[in-house]
């Protein structure tokens, strides 16, 4: 049995269909990011906070968000079982860190340890870093 001519595997993907789903996930993520910027900066610089346009932008933003979630689910379903385990472990750790750190961070202002209102951006950054590190550690573990 000669399988050498059919070697199409990379380190992280099991077949070309995975690459298609990964590309879709990247495109949906980019679209969602652009729609986030549109909601925030469009209201300020383009339509001067007119509610009708803001609602359209928000609906577009939420639609892109749903697309992103669907693309993520499809991407997960096409991963092989080890890749899915690494990703799900990273998601679990990220959710835990986000919840624990988020609640603690929110309480900092209530108990007067910080003088400013906690920013959601800080929590998102923490979650992003946690997710990236968890994926990195997971991949190293099963290398």
């Amino acid at each position: 049995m000669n399988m050498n001519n059919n070697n199409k595997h990379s380190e992280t993907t099991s077949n070309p269909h995975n690459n298609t789903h990964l590309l879709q996930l990247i495109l949906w993520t980019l679209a969602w990011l652009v729609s986030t910027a549109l909601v925030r900066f469009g209201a300020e610089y383009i339509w001067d906070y007119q509610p009708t346009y803001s609602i359209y932008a928000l609906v577009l933003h939420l639609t892109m968000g749903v697309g992103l979630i669907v693309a993520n689910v499809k991407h997960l379903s096409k991963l092989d079982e080890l890749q899915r385990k690494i990703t799900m472990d990273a998601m679990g750790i990220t959710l835990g860190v986000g919840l624990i750190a988020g609640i603690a961070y929110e309480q900092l202002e209530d108990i007067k340890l910080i003088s400013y209102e906690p920013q959601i951006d800080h929590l998102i950054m923490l979650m992003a870093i946690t997710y990236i590190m968890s994926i990195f550690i997971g991949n190293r573990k099963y290398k």
Partner: protein
Amino acid sequence: MKNRLKVLRAERDWTQADLANALDVSRQTANAIEKGKFDPSLPLAFKIARLFTLPIEEIFFDEEATFISK
């Protein structure tokens, strides 16, 4: 869980990429299973057994069961 994948693969002169391709998994996954770092699911274990035309128990070894029987 220990296994004989490396030996079976070598007997057939397959690379890890060949094995990964035949099982439709990534090379990382084939490597992790071969090294015993990751235990495959039952469907994947059956797929491996079919690929090598061997019973699962001749490919994978339950170390705990082996220890108890001693």
